[in-house]
């Protein structure tokens, strides 16, 4: 399990390769990469600034990943989340999961993303041509998470 919260960019391909090669018994690596969009709900995005709660961020990500290990037979995971000011097309987050069979890697990767969205202490402030504002949490993220308890 690797968790990193950093300003620097990351190399998603290298992380996936590392997960693969570290575990010859892993047949599958499923990954999610999130990037800054140029348009968000019809607003032109100039930049996005990510704030977090150092200490709690890492603990909450580790707790989410541990839940995934309890639910599925997965082999390894990496979660990298960037903080600071990002531009459109910058990467924000990587979640990658390896497992022997694909179904468990898909489920665990989506589970981790869904819980990250609702439980990990990150906040986004969007800068547009007309000013800055904090983004509101979305109800769809709450429902995506609640699915897993269905």
């Amino acid at each position, binding site marked *: 399990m690797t968790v990193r919260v950093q300003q620097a960019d990351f190399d998603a391909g290298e992380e996936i390769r590392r997960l693969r090669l570290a575990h010859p018994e892993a047949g599958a690596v499923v990954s999610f990469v999130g990037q800054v969009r140029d348009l968000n709900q019809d607003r032109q995005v100039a930049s996005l600034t990510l704030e977090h*709660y150092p*200490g709690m961020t890492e603990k909450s990500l580790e707790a989410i990943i541990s839940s995934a290990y309890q639910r599925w037979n997965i082999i390894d995971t990496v979660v990298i989340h960037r903080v600071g000011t990002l531009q459109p097309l910058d990467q924000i987050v990587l979640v990658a999961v390896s497992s022997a069979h694909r179904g468990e890697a898909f489920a665990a990767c989506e589970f981790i993303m869904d819980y990250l969205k609702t439980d*990990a*202490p*990150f*906040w*986004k402030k969007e800068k547009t041509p007309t000013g800055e504002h904090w983004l*509101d949490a979305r109800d769809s993220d709450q429902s995506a998470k609640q699915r897993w308890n269905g």
Partner: protein
Amino acid sequence: MIQLLYFARLREALNMDGEALPLTEAISVSALMASLAARGGAWQEQFDGTRPLRAAINQELVANTALIQPGDEVAFFPPVTGG
């Protein structure tokens, strides 16, 4: 004492990222919120329960009924928007 931390929209509204407060016996999160709201102005706006607010004690999300003990780190913040 307890250490209070404020994040994101809340930090900006209060113009403060945290403060230390005296505390000698356990109180609930909602009791602490009520005493912060009683400061009036921006404090009242943020802590009077009309805005969605999350609380963490010692870096774990908690419900407003949770008890804060002396020595705890208590954080308040808006619903998270990472990922």
